[in-house]
């Protein structure tokens, strides 16, 4: 299996190493022997058909699932047994496929929450709201306002309760919260699902900017092939819990197995022709 260094960068020791990870739920094998590496500063995409195990892989990396076998290393350190909050503290930040915002909080509080693991205020300071509590909160607020809210262009909703926001904005708040976690590695699970082209482009721009301005490494799961192929340095293809291919977008795209299992095609016109053909065939049958 080949691993290509990210475009235009010298090879560096990998930031994240997933080594023959296996995960089973009763009879269902969600992951079997998955291995790949994420290079620092890269954008790595995990793609694959529905049910291939992508989200399970993310859950395993962030510690929500314990793998049945294999190991995960972050900056060379073994984290397979580390509880999730510890991993968050190390800088493994993520967003969720099924939006997991805290519906009882405002956008701002949701984002603030992301910083939790990096703050130090204890109960007594909190009850008195004095000293460190006051300082930390002020600092956090400024940081979030200036670096995240402005950056993601969500200033108009900062005091809105998240529950009533439209889907696309909720996704953006998810991203904001992940950014507030001070990510070393930012894991995005389907960041542009439910977005139209325009919004997808916005999100793509954010992702590029995050890497450029924050120096974060990005690991994402996404079904929008246009975006994946354009943005990623490295693509990992999962099918039935196994890595069936990985490499640069060009390499992956050329892999015939990947095409069969996964990739769709075309613009409106050709797609229309294809769909109509399918329908006619159905009627005839």
């Amino acid at each position: 299996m080949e691993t290509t260094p990210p475009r235009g960068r010298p090879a560096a020791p990998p930031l994240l190493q997933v080594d023959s990870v296996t995960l089973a739920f009763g009879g269902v094998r969600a992951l079997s022997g998955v291995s790949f590496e994420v290079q620092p500063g890269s954008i790595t995409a995990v793609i694959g058909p529905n049910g291939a195990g992508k989200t399970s892989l993310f859950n395993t990396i962030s510690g929500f699932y314990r793998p049945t076998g294999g190991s995960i290393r972050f900056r060379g350190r073994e984290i397979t047994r580390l509880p999730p909050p510890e991993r968050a503290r190390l800088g493994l930040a993520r967003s969720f496929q099924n939006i997991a915002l805290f519906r009882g909080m405002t956008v701002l509080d949701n984002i603030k929450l992301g910083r939790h693991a990096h703050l130090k205020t204890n109960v007594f300071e909190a009850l008195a709201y004095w000293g460190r509590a006051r300082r930390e909160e002020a600092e956090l607020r400024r940081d979030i306002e200036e670096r995240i809210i402005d950056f993601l262009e969500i200033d108009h909703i900062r005091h809105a309760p998240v529950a009533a926001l439209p889907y696309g904005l909720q996704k953006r708040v998810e991203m904001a919260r992940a950014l507030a976690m001070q990510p070393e590695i930012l894991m995005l699970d389907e960041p542009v699902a439910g977005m139209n082209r325009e919004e997808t482009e916005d999100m793509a721009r954010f992702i590029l900017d995050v890497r450029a301005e924050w120096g974060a490494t990005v690991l994402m799961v996404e079904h929008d092939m246009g975006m994946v192929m354009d943005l990623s340095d490295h693509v990992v293809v999962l099918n039935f819990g196994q890595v069936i291919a990985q490499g640069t977008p060009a390499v992956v795209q050329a892999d015939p197995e990947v095409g069969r299992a996964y990739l769709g095609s075309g613009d409106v016109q050709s797609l229309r022709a294809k769909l109509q053909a399918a329908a006619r065939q159905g009627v005839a049958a």
Partner: protein
Amino acid sequence: MRIGTFKESYTADAALFDSRTQHAWLAIAGALLLLFPFVASDYWLYMACLVAINVASATGLNILTGYTGLVSLGQAAFMGLGAYTVAIMQARWGTPLLLNLLGGGFVAMLGGMVVGIPSLRVKGLYLAIVTIAASFIAHFLFANFQITGGTAGLSMQPGRILGIDLDTSFRLYWLIVPVMLLMLLGAANLFRTRIGRAFIAIRDRDISAEVLGIPLLRYKLLSFGLSSFYAGVAGGLWAYFFRVVTPESFPLSMSIFFLAAIIVGGMGSILGGILGAVFMTMVPELLKLVVDLLPGSADLAVFLSPVRLVVFGALIIGFLVFEPLGLAEMWRRTRRFFHLWPFRN
């Protein structure tokens, strides 16, 4: 969205009370609290103290149930722990009042944290019943131990502070109300910081909170601890207030009372806890006043008493059907109305 206020800084935006009107209201409320004891009759002072104790305890429960989402029906038992601790400390060691209150708080806190241990696995109503179990176990201990005076319970001397015997509602008022205000302030502060946010996150979705960096067990225990600390202190105040502590002083119905208070008032809102506790404590009394105003009350009272039960229940139902998010939500709505008035569409 509010109109007409423009924040100068982020700190100002995060302040508890942010507008000039709010400061004015606060000043008025403070003045009223200060004046009240000098104008009110013994009965109203008594009620004020009782309300304040209930507000303190309800606020504690609100931390646990309203903000952290762990439904507890053990608040009365934790109050009992606090009350017994205070009574025992006072009788055995004669320690000073404030220390006793703290002691009551801490013992209750320990109790709360022990009860909180199952909360990592056991959730929702299942957990609520575990807290009921805990309160029955507490009752059993109260009723069957020597140190707690068995079923007869313990009687106390009035509390002493600065050489003054706290033996009237007037004097107790000056202990109970300030302590309650301090506790309210603490709770309000808490939810401006990472700890309060973590509680809310656990309430909304605990598993994702964990992945975002919140150690669940530690925070659930913390919430249980804080909540029962509040209960314990409130229970201590209760002990100084009634001066008799028996196993039957803290029945399950009292826990339900507190739960009702925060639900009717509005869960996850400090104001909700206050409004709810005031409502639940005062409504039965006010209903009595209404009955008294009716002519020929003596004979009528017999018949009207069950009517009061019905009206009380119906009020709870009516409020919730009308506004399931509680009194605090109604208050917010009214405020919004006046803020936007006359620009409402």
